[in-house]
């Protein structure tokens, strides 16, 4: 089905979020770091919600983390995805939490505390979305 290409919808890139999506296209996972208080944030935004500084930068993450919690989405269904979709909150090792999908794992084997690593999946219109998979798995 390679002639079909990716079915996952493309991300909507904005002035604030471009740093995240551009990094993803380059195969890197980043979070926003406040230069004033040093806190990591996700998603990127124009102002640090902790100290209100506008001095912000992209901070590269290892892409390693653990599953904080998750849900298996059965209904309603969007034809772009295969169900159940695993939606997971991932605690990155650097201390920031992201909402994403887990791939490369049977849904019934997902567990809180599972060690995961980032993987990058192409979307429609040449976008790339960071997803997570069990750590140490060959792609």
């Amino acid at each position: 089905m390679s002639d079909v290409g990716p079915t996952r919808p493309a991300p909507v890139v904005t002035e604030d979020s471009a740093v995240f999506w551009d990094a993803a296209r380059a195969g890197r996972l980043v979070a926003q770091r406040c230069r004033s208080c040093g806190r990591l944030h996700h998603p990127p935004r124009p102002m640090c919600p902790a100290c209100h500084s506008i001095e912000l930068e992209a901070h590269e993450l290892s892409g390693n983390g653990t599953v904080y919690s998750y849900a298996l989405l059965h209904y309603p269904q969007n034809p772009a995805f295969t169900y159940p979709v695993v939606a997971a909150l991932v605690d990155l090792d650097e201390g920031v939490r992201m909402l994403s999908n887990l791939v490369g794992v049977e849904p019934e084997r997902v567990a809180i505390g599972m060690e995961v690593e980032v993987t990058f999946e192409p979307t429609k219109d040449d976008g790339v979305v960071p997803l997570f998979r069990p750590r140490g798995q060959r792609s």
Partner: protein
Amino acid sequence: MTSTKPGMRRVAMVGAGMVPFGEHFDKGWDELVQRAFLAAVGSVDKGLDRREIEAGFIGACRPGLHGQQTQGGVSLSGTIGLLGMPASRIENGCPTGSETVRIGAMAVASRWHDLVLVVGYEKMRDATVEGLLGIALEGHPIHNRGETALNHFAPQARAHMETYGTTAEQMALVSVKNHANGSHDPYAHHKKPVTLDEVMASPLICDPLRLLDCCPQTDGAAAVLLAGEEVVDRYTDNPVWLWGAGNGTDTYWMHEKETLTSFPATKLAAERAYAMAGVGPTDIEMVELHDCFTIMEIISSEDLGLTEPGKGGQLVESGDTMIGGRLPINPSGGLLSKGHPLGASGVAQIVEIFWQLRGDVAAQDAARQVEFRRGLALQHNAGGKAISNSVVTIWGQDKP
């Protein structure tokens, strides 16, 4: 003894009513609002000249999403034939209804108005699921993909199960209890009792939550009349007094939450309401709480201090929260059975408390009437991405 600021006065509910929750394809939202208004006015023991209503607040959460235009305050004043009356529309996520009551109460407590009308409504069945999913975006560049409310509550359920050993059966028991209560509520959307086996066999929607762990999409409207302490006697000798009210907020985003096993917004709202009322959880004899999903009743019973953290599952298992138990929770059937028309839900919880504290429920179905000693009931309404905004109100038979 309640704690209020200097100059504030006591507020009482002198009338309350609602339309039966359900599917109202044959009625417009304005007809629902009118019927709820007429029910509230008709409930005033000593009668009411409608021109005495000084101001109105209408709660509607997402009428645009469900295919109706929003018209601000005139959707109340114009609809009920009191054009000219000061009126505002309030929106505050799923607790829109009770927030509208809280704001109406502030208008009375501040002595700005003597008699205030509060109506909440939502007409949710007009929109298709496809339409709802298409619009269910937050306009956010990263968090904007086809999510449903379940996507927020299922990870909470999973975390609570992992941390405290809460079971799917305990969650299912919430559904069994509330549907049993709803079978005695002529105003409930789903009046059919369900068994534990039926809940456990219902389809997984967002694992670990099943179809019967979820409230339905519902149309409805509910209304209350709030009066200042000096004028209450004009309307009734049997008012229901507001003892306390609180609102609390927390982050909107799932990944920013400090915990998935508790709702800080609810804890804040409860803390503020208890402080204003000068009472604690052990003084409460009946609760209407926000059971949009079964796990919500379990976690919220903990956050409201009705049981210890992690013990919400055991609380429902104990039978204490059934009608006739130590602390009935959701005798109306709750959102699970009665339905959850967003802007109307919180107002309808307060209507149930009005009926319960006055002993009016016995005339509808005696099996639903809760027995009171001290005469205090608590209402809790929450929402916004599990949970970014929470409202708690406490009501009493006696003047605080």
